[in-house]
């Protein structure tokens, strides 16, 4: 069964994905989905990941409404219909 997850792409990263605002990808964990993404768009890889197992520290990834650091981080399980948002951290207020 396919597990389509929608990844929302922020403006800063859209040039690397041909201007798309969102991309549907398959995978059963956050890491699998993001790896599928960077597999398709290698330019994104070095922007998203610091190394194989760690995201760049200025990238926040949310599964639906929750920061994945409150879940199982990159190992967080995803299921069909989930939304992954990639969002830069922004200043305080």
């Amino acid at each position: 069964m396919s597990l389509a997850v929608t990844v929302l792409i922020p403006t800063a990263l859209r040039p690397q994905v041909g201007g798309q605002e969102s991309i549907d990808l398959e995978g059963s964990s956050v890491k699998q989905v993001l790896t599928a993404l960077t597999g398709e768009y290698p330019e994104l890889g070095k922007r998203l990941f610091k190394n194989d197992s760690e995201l760049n520290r200025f990238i926040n990834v949310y599964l639906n409404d929750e920061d994945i650091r409150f879940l199982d981080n990159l190992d967080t399980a995803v299921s069909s219909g989930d939304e992954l948002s990639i969002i830069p951290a922004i200043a305080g207020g």
Partner: protein
Amino acid sequence: MSYVQSLRCKECETEYPIEPRTVCDNDFAPVEVAYDYDQMQGRVTRQSIEAGPRSLWRYKDLLPIEGAPLVGQWSGYTPLIKADNLARELSVRELYLKDDSVNYPTYSYKDRVVSVALTKAIEFGFDTVGCASTGNLAHSVAAHAARAGLRACVIIPHDLEQGKIIGSLVFGPRMVKIRGNYDDVNRLCSQIADKYNWAIVNVNLRPFYTEGAKTHGFEIAEQLGWQLPQHTIVPVAGGTILPKVHKAYEELITLGIVDDNKPKIHAAQAEGCSPVVKAIQEGKELFHPQKPNTLAKSIAIGNPADGYYVIDVVNKSGGHAASAADEEIIDALKLLATTEGIFTEPAGGTTLACAIKLIESGHISRDESICICITGNGLKTVDVLAEVGNFPDVPIIDAKLTQFDELVSQIDETTTCQSKVSASPQAASNYCVSVDEGVPKCP
């Protein structure tokens, strides 16, 4: 003309033109305004600054605007108070309070960052400005936008104090409450800035906004007679002001305006939202975000965007960090009020409570100069104090002198309760107790 060169990524140093920009395209790191300090040498001096207006714009040469200031002409230049009463309480030699609780026009340090951000918004040609806010920033954006004739949209967590909501609504912005905490608001605002062509001051104007926070540090130095305090204690929410106070000190050192006395910068957070303090205390370079749970709502940011830089600056400068529980925050807030006559919000109580802890732990020496940054005003959060302030009941009598006489006769002959305040904030907050008739009386 200005001394601004470019926007530069704080990590990979990629340069960008001066434009609305949230982060570096390469690594999502913040971008910072870069200046030509060589050109400033001999031109930006104590004298050139002292000749400027009595507002934050006296430091215009060190701010990223091109023309004349267009917003916040009266913001900044708040008092630096030598706090001798509080110093005596805390048994320290030299204590100062940088008091942005009386910043103009909305009583918090945010009037500094907004003055710069909205001047920049107008320079860029925006007609709508906005922000994600825990309250104070919304006040400032709404007020300055009203005067500047800009449309404003402020976005806040749904559970803010009443004073924080009305204090914005009065200026007529569009306001949206979000079911969630500040970090949820932030996430949405980041997406809004992506989609709408608005100047969200802490998103796409962030590089300019944050520079405004330097003026808090410039003023401390100037008002100390062009010297730096050996210790500066700064509250941490999103992590904007602490690194910028440090940057201000470094710029003044670079320009030869002050001597480098190796100032230490210390971080203060509420225990219920202390990701950065925990990282510093545990010697970690990265923080783990936290779900905030504190009555100090203005600093309840669990995923501080500039948290990494706070950790870096505190460590580099030889400072340390402390967090304070809600009761300690309220006790410190009341201690500041009863010793120095300053009414700050819980964020200010947090900063003082943490300063006390750092003094007691020896991270701050009692015989060195100390400056505590007070960044917000208590009149905005009276509902919090009404709930947990533990004040004595106030007696009600008829307008008859005999009844007043009766009250007075019940009060201990030591009517000056203040003289009995002990060195601990806990004791200070309890110095008045209710007797049966609800008359304040010294214990």
